[in-house]
């Protein structure tokens, strides 16, 4: 049973560029949440996707956008990269009714913006 997978593992981008990160949820899950984890900090909620729509969003600018595909996989896009966007981006999967928040996290994508 495959867990949550993310790609790529590491990524280096230049300030101002755009980046796309990918996530495949755990088998049987249909909800994907994205988190940003700065070095030495706890993860911060970016947004959650369910039924191909953004269900809720954290306190992140519009430069952060996402998409969910019919197979439940998801992409996180970040435009106009800033140095402060350097972080570990985590994807977590779950399923309704979401009363149980045992979200399963992937290994993350380490983004470095230079």
């Amino acid at each position, binding site marked *: 049973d495959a867990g949550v997978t993310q790609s790529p593992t590491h990524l280096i981008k230049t300030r101002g560029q755009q980046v796309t990160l990918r996530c495949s949820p755990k088998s049987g899950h249909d909800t994907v949440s994205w988190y940003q984890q700065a070095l030495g900090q*706890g993860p911060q*909620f970016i947004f959650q996707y369910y039924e191909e729509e953004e269900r809720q969003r954290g306190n992140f600018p519009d430069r952060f956008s996402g998409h969910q595909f019919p197979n439940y996989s998801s992409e996180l896009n970040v435009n106009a990269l800033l140095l402060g966007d350097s972080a570990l981006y985590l994807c977590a999967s779950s399923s309704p009714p979401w009363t149980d928040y045992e979200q399963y*996290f992937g*290994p993350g994508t380490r983004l470095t913006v230079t």
Partner: protein
Amino acid sequence: GESVGLHLPTLSVQEGDNSIINCAYSNSASDYFIWYKQESGKGPQFIIDIRSNMDKRQGQRVTVLLNKTVKHLSLQIAATQPGDSAVYFCAEAISGGADGLTFGKGTHLIIQP
């Protein structure tokens, strides 16, 4: 905004001793709390959870205590092993909500041989 925080950034314990990691939360609407373990280079791994209608829950070698009066959460690890070395995060959520988990900054647990 309201957030979950931890009292100590680093905790060093002797192998075989019990570890206690503390966490304070401030959102009184939160009714679901989770402890995660994160090892270097990996995503957070679920350890144990507790709902606000409980004050204690036990797992294998771990116990979570919830004190709603003072908005305090703790994780107790019995007979700490080298493999317990990691950063531990507490997180809070509102059941059924879509705001995601709110994490604290984490406590780095170091096991001394």
